[in-house]
């Protein structure tokens, strides 16, 4: 799953994931944390397993930290989450790690960096 308010970034990240050759059946996109939680609930209800979430830090409606906290409160914190950020020193990144994110990918990123970071946290990669 990719959660980002930028449609461009969602497509860039999706392209990188595909080119990285990770074992992903489907890539679900959400434009903010609210949509991300709704997508997780829907996937769980349909019996689908989410293997990886790439999440922006700053988004309207519900940001990356808010998404992490809400999914944990709903018992949906099973998939590893990698934050995607242009500013690794942003205090919100540290807050996201404290709220359950497994790590972060710093922009600019290469396909190889996405592959390495994702494989490191995905259970079945």
């Amino acid at each position, binding site marked *: 799953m990719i959660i980002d308010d*930028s*449609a*461009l*970034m969602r*497509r*860039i990240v999706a*392209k990188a994931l595909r080119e990285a050759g990770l074992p992903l059946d489907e890539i679900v996109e959400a434009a903010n944390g609210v949509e991300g939680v709704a997508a997780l609930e829907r996937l769980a209800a349909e019996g689908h397993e989410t293997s990886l979430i790439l999440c922006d830090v*700053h988004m309207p409606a519900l940001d990356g930290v808010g998404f992490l906290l809400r999914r944990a409160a709903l018992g949906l914190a099973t998939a590893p989450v990698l934050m995607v*950020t*242009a*500013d*690794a*020193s*942003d205090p919100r990144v540290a807050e996201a790690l404290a709220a359950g994110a497994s790590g972060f990918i*710093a*922009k*600019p*990123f*290469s396909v190889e*960096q996405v592959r390495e970071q994702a494989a490191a946290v995905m259970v079945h990669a």
Partner: protein
Amino acid sequence: MNGGEYADADESQLRWAGLMDETVAETFSAMLGLGCTPSQAAGAPPSPASLRKISARIEFSGAVQGSCAVAMSNADALKIAEIFLSGTADDAMAADTVGELCNVLAGSWKRRLKPPASGAGLSVPAISRHDDAADSSVRQTYNCDGAQLVVRLIVQQMQEE
């Protein structure tokens, strides 16, 4: 720096400009597989399409006071967006591209500064449909696969060790 626009630049400005050159090269290489080098603006008269500008600005806060702005023609932004996406892009994607480039360049440039400036805060990018040609500490034009982008840094205050 090769052929930049650094007339009257002091030592700090030259260093900031060099760091921006590195940042732009890294960003385009990593995310687009493209070379992107400093250049002077082309001497040919601009076409009407190239006069339609998109610019994005990010404000620094904390140990850096100032801003980073990126400006491109609408046509060049579309071109870069289509390379990003490996497909067609629309005007909204072109604006998104300029905003995202500004975000990545601002973040990567300040990461190269010494602490505490490297930990300065970033605003979200503000997009506009014109190029605000305010006085800049550093102004550089880059050529990326035939597309041109202008990066401007305004540094009012910076704290470095």
